[in-house]
């Protein structure tokens, strides 16, 4: 909405500024505990360095949060992405173990992920089950299905094409980085260059009125969960390819929570509405940078969860409607800005949250 008044470029920058600041702080902490953090080498035709590691290790969460951002923008949530990752990894592994090529494996995994997304979407959009419950079904049963596919074993494979997706490089850059960057750019382009993004936001703000306004919310909701399933499938294939095996029990375990956290850090409200995929992706990088600080500083990794919890709590306080009202009142009681000054638009945004 701000794009019409101020123009797209400055509004995007302003939107992601808080996330960029947090990311800068997290990276600065990394440098503080490990001065050579930004050093990047080029060895054996591959880029090496801690920064590259952050980008590479953050790939699964980054992929998940692309779909999750869209789902959360419709006031939904997708708890099943971790389980879908396990299913997709298992399907890809079993297809290459059966002697098919990596292309077939990738397609089969994407099909499995798409099917899972479709199932979630139908439960939410057609049967009208609240999203947290609808996706809970697949979260509970999904790992069982994945184990059914792998027959309870950790399926290992040595198909070079499939491994390349998780551990290989293209022009020196690790493939996962390219995949999440490309997918993020593609989805952002599609939702922002068409009306799709606005329609999704409309569903999140008020589904009933969006339907009355003529938006086919059912189809859009199904599509959003479908995209989330596809993103999860891609993440699952990357994780499986990285360890050269499909582990139905542990692949993607708790990643749904990281993905939701990334979206929340990205400043997207869990109550639906306005969203920014770029901000969510930066959120994913922030999480990975925090992980990296903990690893590099030699702090026991046990503190990881505590720090994440405190991070969520801090963001919750900032996002809270009541605190938002309080800040608004503080601002309103201060000197009033000029009525036509552009400074009035951010306060409006804050009250909208």
């Amino acid at each position, binding site marked *: 909405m701000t794009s019409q008044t101020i123009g797209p470029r400055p509004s995007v920058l302003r939107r992601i500024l808080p996330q960029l600041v947090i990311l800068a702080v997290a990276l600065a902490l990394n440098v503080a505990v490990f001065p050579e953090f930004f050093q990047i080498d080029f060895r054996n035709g591959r880029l090496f360095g801690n920064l590259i590691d952050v980008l590479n290790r953050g790939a699964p969460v980054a992929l998940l949060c692309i779909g999750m951002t869209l789902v959360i923008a419709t006031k939904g*949530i997708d708890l099943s992405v971790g389980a879908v990752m396990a299913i997709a990894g298992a399907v890809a592994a079993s297809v290459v173990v059966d002697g098919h090529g990596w292309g077939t494996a990738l397609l089969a995994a994407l099909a499995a992920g798409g099917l899972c997304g479709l199932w979630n979407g139908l439960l939410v959009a057609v049967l009208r089950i609240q999203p947290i*419950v609808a996706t809970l079904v697949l979260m509970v*049963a999904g790992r*069982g299905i994945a*184990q059914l596919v792998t027959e309870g074993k950790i399926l290992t494979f040595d198909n070079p094409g499939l491994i390349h997706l998780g551990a290989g490089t293209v022009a020196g850059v690790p493939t996962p980085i390219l995949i999440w960057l490309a997918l993020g750019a593609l989805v952002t382009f599609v939702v922002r260059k068409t009306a799709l993004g606005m329609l999704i936001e409309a569903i999140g703000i008020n589904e009933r009125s969006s339907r009355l306004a003529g938006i086919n919310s059912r189809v859009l909701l199904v599509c959003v969960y479908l995209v989330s399933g596809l993103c999860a499938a891609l993440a699952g294939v990357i994780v499986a390819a990285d360890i050269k095996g499909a582990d139905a029990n542990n692949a993607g375990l708790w990643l749904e929570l990281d993905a939701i956290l990334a979206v929340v850090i990205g400043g997207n409200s869990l109550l639906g509405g306005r969203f920014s995929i770029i901000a969510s992706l930066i959120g994913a990088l922030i999480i990975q940078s925090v992980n990296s600080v903990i690893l590099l500083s030699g702090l026991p990794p*046990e503190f990881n*969860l*505590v720090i994440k919890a405190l991070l969520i709590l801090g963001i*919750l*306080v900032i996002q809270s409607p009541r605190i938002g009202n309080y800040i608004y009142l503080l601002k309103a009681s201060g000197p009033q800005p000029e009525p036509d000054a552009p400074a009035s638009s951010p306060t409006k945004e804050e009250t909208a949250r």
Partner: protein
Amino acid sequence: MIRSTHLPLLITLATFVLAYALCASAYPAMLSLRVVANLLTDNAFLGIAAVGMTFVILSGGIDLSIGSVIAFTGVFLAVILRETSIHPLAAFALVLLLTTAFGTAMGATIHYLEMPPFIVTLAGMFLARGAAYVLSTESVPITHEFYDTLQGLYWKIDGARFRLIGGLMVLTFIVGALVAHRTRFGQNVYALGGGEQAAKLMGVPVARTTIGIYAVSGGLAGLSGIVFSLYTSAGYSLATVGVELDAIAAVVIGGTLLTGGYGFVAGTFFGILIMGLIQTYIVFDGTLSSWWTKIVIGSLLFAFILLQKGLTWAAKKRAAQARMRTATGSAALS
């Protein structure tokens, strides 16, 4: 007369009886008292936690932190009994206080910051699990003679041992059912689940009730943690991952409406038993793999959610028809 609000509970009961009959026809040994006793013992910690979850879901909320709180309680007990010489009973009191305070804090955050329970308890889940990791990442055994005494307590009938923790679960369910249906707090919980706005207008103390619900859930998760530590004689920070989902599944299979307002504590008890039965069947069968448990529970969950949807839809339709009838009736009179 069968009221539509009782229908989910009746269907849960019927499912349980049917499932038990199927199991017994395949393996007559499952009818033995020993299996029943083990069913109670093995699901004791889950059952106690599920009572708390029933209250939370009845009020229209959700608590994702209980699995982590159970693990934290176990590790806390193990570490404190290893490092200090305080009596386990004092340690129990201390840990119950801690977990209840933890639940209270989450409830206060949910109410005063007006945040969705889902995300607040998610933060709580990370926090409790993280605290357990910080205390110890290894499995800490508990060796205390008082623990041996408690574990040695059982009531023997025909070779079946009804242990203390199973009895504690049944007691928790009875107290939970009494609180839900016979106290003002229980009625407030139902009112809150029916709609916060309406509850507020009716004079329900929303703040006190919301905070109380999460305090109860936290406290019962603590009690469940104590039971789990008695069950395993150890505290391990990686234990009970995903128990919150099992508890939610048990509540839903027990016939409680996930949107809140309808349901029975007793239903959750049968939900727990059905889930335990599935596990027992798989153990008896021996050829089925354990992942079938997850798939069957997932399908049951789905079936019950569908049932809930159908019932709500039918009730709405009936209400609309009744409205229509009175409207046309009064029109005809005038």
